[in-house]
């Protein structure tokens, strides 16, 4: 881009033209650098989330739209429950039953037991994962403790409930669905509000925090 200009301009006039061109190039390239930062910081994360949602990579169940509930009694699906704690999480956390057989379309309930053995009030958040991948869209949670944060006072324990329906459109191949919950300690990110709330709840009967 610069070479055809250079040949036409005389030597004395060349310097300012050259400088002007330099400024233009610098402006363009700086804009490119800024644009790439913006791209990395504000475009890539939402784009990634969008892509994961479109491809179903990160879908962990979703809102259930009710239809006439017909139970498909021709099939029996095994649903397995796994509970684990994130590395730094001292709570006891396990399902009441580890396995359950349900018909597609049937409303089922399962409870998890959580206990805070530490001397501090803590807040937890459960993050679910469902396998196999082709069952993800057909496992509907209608009520779940994982929808909310779980505050527990020191030494307190609670029964955490989940209600689910396996969709009648579940692919025929799928005979077993595994639901895994990982419990994260989010006390540090929740501030005092939740802890006060937890302290109040200590006096009441442990609530299931169901919605």
């Amino acid at each position, binding site marked *: 881009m610069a070479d055809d200009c250079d040949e036409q301009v005389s030597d004395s006039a060349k310097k300012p033209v050259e400088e002007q061109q330099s400024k233009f190039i610098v402006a363009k*390239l700086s804009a490119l650098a800024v*644009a790439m930062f913006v791209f990395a910081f504000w475009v890539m994360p939402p784009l990634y989330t969008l892509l994961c949602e479109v491809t179903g990579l990160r879908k962990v169940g979703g809102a259930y739209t009710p239809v006439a509930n017909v139970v498909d009694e021709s099939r029996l699906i095994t649903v397995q429950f796994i509970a684990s704690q994130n590395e730094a999480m001292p709570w006891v956390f396990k399902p009441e039953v580890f396995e359950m057989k349900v018909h597609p379309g049937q409303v089922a309930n399962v409870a998890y037991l959580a206990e805070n053995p530490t001397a501090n009030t803590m807040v937890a958040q459960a993050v679910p994962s469902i396998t196999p991948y082709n069952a993800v869209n057909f496992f509907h949670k209608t009520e779940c403790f994982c929808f909310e944060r779980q505050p527990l006072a020191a030494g307190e324990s609670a029964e955490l409930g989940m209600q689910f329906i396996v969709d009648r459109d579940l692919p025929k191949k799928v005979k077993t669905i595994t639901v895994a919950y990982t419990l994260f300690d989010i006390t540090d*990110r929740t501030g005092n509000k939740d802890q006060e709330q937890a302290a109040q709840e200590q006096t009441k009967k442990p609530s299931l925090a169901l919605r």
Partner: protein
Amino acid sequence: MAHGPDKGLSRWLFTTNHKDIGSMYLWFSFLMFLVGGVMALIIRAELFEPGMQIVDPNFFNQMTTMHGLIMVFGAVMPAFVGLANWMVPLMIGAPDMALPRMNNWSFWILPFAFAMLGSTLFMEGGAPNFGWTFYAPLSTTYAPPSVTFFIFAVHIMGASSIMGSINIIATILNMRAPGMTLMKMPLFVWTWLITAYLLIAVMPVLAGVVTMMLMDIHFGTAFFDAAGGGDPVLFQHIFWFFGHPEVYIMILPAFGVVSAILPTFARKPLFGYSSMVYATAAIAFLSFIVWAHHMFTVGMPLFAELVFMYATMLIAVPTGVKVFNWVATMWKGSMTFETPMLFAIAFVILFTIGGFSGLMLAIAPVDFQYHDTYFVVAHFHYVLVPGAIFSITAGVYYWLPKWCGHMYNEVLGKTHFWLAFAGLNITFFPMHFSGLAGMPRRIPDYHDLFADWNMISSIGAFLFGAAQILFLYIVIRTIVSGRKATQEVWEGSHGLEWTVPSPAPYHTFDTPPEVK
């Protein structure tokens, strides 16, 4: 108008001269090369035998991390910027860089960045220990407190690289001598033009990802934290979107250096000049669409694995064009084997080996076995050491007579080459085998099964390290007391840089040369 350099320290602090700044970049990168090299030797000393001998695991991890960061950002990249500063204006007939003051600044912020990074070694909790790829959550949730200093150091390095790149592009596009069209530029200039664009495109992405880390650590965001709705895999995508072009940033200028040296000592013009230019551009383009081949094992859909696998293999095509062009340049040439030529030929052979192991890694189904083993370590050291380091060394031997006006000692130079060549292969070739046998990388202890390969690697590493001390001695000796070099230096040399006296005067091309 013509005046010499200032006296004393202020010459170096306030200089805007491309030759001064080029020299400072080169010396700085050599210092960093030695520091990173000492860290590599600590790693190899610990791995000499199975079991824990010298350092504790946390310090071992700090060493692998700092070795990688210092070699990539402190040794290879500044060395190429130094070569560009020295040679690009001389090659295109320009009196200096387009933006001399910014040039000064882009160099002088580097020592501060690396002082900051190096100081983390002495902080409570130690230096970064999460690997040079600093994957979250290792670099966020589980990082030592010094990670914040690491983040700011990366910010400064990025700023330096971006400024340097803008400068190089402005110089190349704007300050070529009359008659030097784009397709008449030496290939070193071409490869740097394309590299500079890569740098401007991806260094801000690196800045972005470390900024996200900073916010996750200190400001309660959750970009990479699953508990807060983020995703650690996102980190890997953004990092490698920077990281893969970064690989080519470290190798494209090397292609340029080798393409300058081979024709000189084969006494033939470069074979397929324009295909070299297009191949460089093709590699640069492809580098943006292959990043996920670094993360085949992360749990991507099959379709994505296939796309990234095929795209990666496509890179072998333009790279193959280059290798064949270099071989064709030497074919039936009147070759002589001076030190720069030896390094350049070793580059062609060994870089090709590194390329082949890269192709093996690109095959997604087998990558599951190779992933995070010493096979990967062998691969990237085969492209970086004989690729980047050998080409820089070749360039230094090739242009040193022009810089300082003295010839180096050929016997010492060749001794350096053979020591380095042997050391390199003894160090890194056995890693292919230990890797294929399953030895994981970044682990201070290992199964007895791998003992022999590791002992050989460690011996080679100390040999390679010793060769670099000889290199330092050769360079200093040449500057102080070599025999006088001629203006052309090499019998077969051609190009504008050989039309100025040796040593190159402080100011060159005040009136632009005419290029026919």
